């Protein structure tokens, strides 16, 4: 039995230490942005297409010279940097909102510079950001569910791939996309039960099982893909995708309407799952017990909570949610399965869980950042960028590195994550 001591927190009321990490990083980015996007920025005009052409309420497109946009964004960035500096010097925590707004402004500056002399299709970018982020969001939700009860889930990648594969194949065979989605969720959940039972019952190292499961799924799907599916691609790997459903009124909102409220069914499911998970975790009995198990399993046991069973079910249902994320790749977006098509999204989801501090909403926002990076790579290829696109693709990974390295304050996960609970 592992011994966990509750340390007295007699020093925790002490004032926040002076931390200038955030303002320093902001200052560097601001200077960079000011030099390249404003002073050296092109004077050609850039047009932001804010509304879709068929929208009910149309806003005029926003057109202005690229360097003017550079100057104005840099000005806002300077203001936020100074404000953060003030928080840092007066030993207060920089509000999370500041970082979010700063990031959005920086993205606008980057867009304006990249697309100088061309159009920026805002709605297109946002819509695709959401669709591409979907597997990361759902994978992240699966990760939260697993880590909140104390099980490290390295196998998100495998769960996504399982979901993607089963959704495509079962969807094709049955001719029903919903059958595909359900198969994806069940398949990924079953994969999770392997992780759960080996790590909970037999105390095998969670990291090792996770890695092995990933390799296993890659091997099995590759084999089936090349040996079975390619023989009959039309019958086995042609499920189609969910139709877009337009939500009345909401879809007419400027800027975000079409992007967020004219999407397929899995997007709307995700809109339900994220707040629901938050609610269950932080407002219900189930959630309180789950978090207790992830923080201090022995304490949970002494008040009569079954640690093993709690972990088992949260990990398993988390797997089902990640499986839905896999389905979002095939029947939600691409329309067919391809070899190893998750391409590391599961590992990004793992990082996003940390970046979002095990909080469903923050994790989703972080995942959107990665979705945005992916669509930027695709889009900026088409507009002849002045710099290699790979630099832009690197940005979210850099952000994650900086954030995980302590920029966003000390990140503290559930205390018992990764530790098996052994009973005498």
């Amino acid at each position, binding site marked *: 039995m592992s*011994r*966990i*001591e*509750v*340390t*007295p*927190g*007699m*020093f*925790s*009321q*002490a004032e926040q*230490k002076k931390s200038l990490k955030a303002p320093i990083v902001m200052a560097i980015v601001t200077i960079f942005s000011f030099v390249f996007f404003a002073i050296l920025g092109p004077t050609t005009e850039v047009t932001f297409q804010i509304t879709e052409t068929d929208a009910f309420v149309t806003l005029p497109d926003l057109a202005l010279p690229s360097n003017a946009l550079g100057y104005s964004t840099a000005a806002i960035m300077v203001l936020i940097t100074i404000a953060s500096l003030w928080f840092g010097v007066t030993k207060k925590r920089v509000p999370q909102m500041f970082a979010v707004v700063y990031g959005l402004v920086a993205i606008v500056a980057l867009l304006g510079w990249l697309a100088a002399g061309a159009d920026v299709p805002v709605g297109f970018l946002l819509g695709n950001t959401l669709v591409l982020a979907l597997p990361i969001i759902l994978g992240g939700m699966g990760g939260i569910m697993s880590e909140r009860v104390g099980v490290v889930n390295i196998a998100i990648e495998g769960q996504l791939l399982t979901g993607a594969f089963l959704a495509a194949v079962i969807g094709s065979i049955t001719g029903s996309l919903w059958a595909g989605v359900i198969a994806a969720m069940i398949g990924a959940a079953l994969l999770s039960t392997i992780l759960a039972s080996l790590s909970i019952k037999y105390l095998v190292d969670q990291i090792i099982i996770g890695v092995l499961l990933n390799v296993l799924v890659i091997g099995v799907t590759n084999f089936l893909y090349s040996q079975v599916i390619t023989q009959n691609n039309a019958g086995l790997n042609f499920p189609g995708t969910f139709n877009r459903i337009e939500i009345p009124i909401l879809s007419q909102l400027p800027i975000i309407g079409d992007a967020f409220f004219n999407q397929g069914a899995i997007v709307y499911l995700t809109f339900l799952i994220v707040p629901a998970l938050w609610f269950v975790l932080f*407002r*219900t*009995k*189930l959630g*309180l*017990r789950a*978090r*207790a198990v992830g*923080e*201090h399993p*022995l*304490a*949970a*046991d*002494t*008040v*009569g*909570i*079954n640690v093993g069973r709690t972990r088992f079910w949260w990990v398993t249902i988390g797997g089902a949610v990640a499986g839905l994320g896999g389905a979002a790749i095939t029947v939600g977006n691409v329309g067919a399965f391809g070899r190893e098509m998750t391409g590391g999204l599961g590992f990004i989801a793992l990082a996003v869980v940390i970046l979002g501090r095990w909080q469903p909403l923050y994790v989703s926002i972080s995942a959107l950042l990665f979705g945005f990076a992916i669509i930027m790579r695709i889009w900026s290829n088409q507009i002849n960028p002045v710099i290699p696109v790979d630099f832009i693709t690197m940005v979210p990974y850099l952000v994650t590195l900086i954030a995980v390295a302590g920029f966003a304050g*000390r990140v503290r996960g559930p*205390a018992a994550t990764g530790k098996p609970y052994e009973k*005498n």
Partner: protein
Amino acid sequence: MKLELRQVTKRFGTLVANDRIDLVVEPGEIHALLGENGAGKSTLMNVLYGLYQAEEGTILLDGVEQNFKGPGDAMAAGIGMVHQHFMLIPVFTVAENVVLGNEPTKKLGVLDLDAARKKVRALSDRFGFDVDPDALVSDLPVGAQQRVEIIKSLIRDAKILVLDEPTAVLTPQETDELMQIMRDLAAAGTSIIFITHKLREVQAVSDKITVIRQGKVVGQAKPTSTAGELATMMVGREVDLKVNKSVAKQGGNLVLRVEDIHVEDDRKQLAVDGVSFNVQAGEVLAIAGVQGNGQTELAEALLGLRHVVKGRGAIALNDVYVDNQSVRQRLEAGIGYVPEDRKKDGLVGEFDIAENLMLNGSYGKPFAKGVAIDFASRDRIANQLIKAFDVRTPSASTQAQKLSGGNQQKVVVARELSREVKLLIVSQPTRGVDVGSIEFIHERIVAERDEGKAVLLISTELDEVLALADRIAVMYRGKIVGIVDANVSRETLGKMMAGVAA
């Protein structure tokens, strides 16, 4: 509620932890369970609480036989337990901790925290606990955390409350408060089982005493028994409760000088906040204080295991500043170190005794010749030390983790004293050690002092501090409240441990 244990037997492998134990606790009675560390008290209570299953024997509540599958069953039957290491979740609030596992809910399992707060307040007011239901547990002092644990049991209508070594983490004043709470609860009809090895507390609060030794009940005693009688029952032979030591020689060289050092804990909070003191050759300076007031961090900083905050204070050993020296350099300069947690920092449990005895000198003579271990020399030294320090072991090649706590500690002490040390830092040297070994280790510490070595003793046990120290420094919240002579009264020390300067 009346509790009866009949012939309860619990084995771990071949070890019999509880051997046919009988115990009767009447309603409203404070029943002390007295025994040395490792006597089987906690095991017995874990059986009662459903955490362990007994091999034989029965548990009866009001004459009805019980069969607990887990703590849930025990709680439902009216048994509450306050564990030695608190079972609280630091990131939860008091209310959340208290209702965990027994949550008041609205529709759809939605937590009703308002109801939880009300219950906590009601109990807190009734017994004068002064606990804020919305405070985070990690922000509470230890005494308050313990009261949260008691509320947790009371809210589940516990009729029998088990307190496992409840005073280990408390100041003397907090201990007095706890005893008052125990009396109030007993007066309200709750039966209390009070597990301890501290004779003074047993005499002060209990109605009945059952003494356990090596897994067996050795007898009952009355609270009017003398400390000597109780100790004899507990250990099984006459015990000399006093350490014989002469007055320290004055005017030894200053061996250790600590000047205004600051040290951070693992959470980057200041744990040692401007501490200064000196230790002379030939004296024992004791750092007293309740656990968690910066003593651990102080000891680690002296050895170099933990950094001192740069530019804020310095450490000098024999007039040489060692702040920038590595641990190895400091050891070679003559520090011997007995860490507070021998299992974590003192020994490698999987290594045998001979290997453990060479850990601090593995890189050179007499343990190594060039790059190879000199096995003959190592084994010879091991056998000598085992004899000299009376380590009870089948052989030098026995794994350290197979030894009892006292013998493990003797291995650590033997290793540290076998080198030429000028300064001996001993942290909690007798925690979890049987009385025989305590006597032995105390004698060795005094012997080192008499040989002219400087000894820094860090201990949370007031008895130990008073028995060994020549001067006593009391630490509270990272600061030294004061440094006083060893003949100071227990009450004064108690006040200092709560932060009141002498």
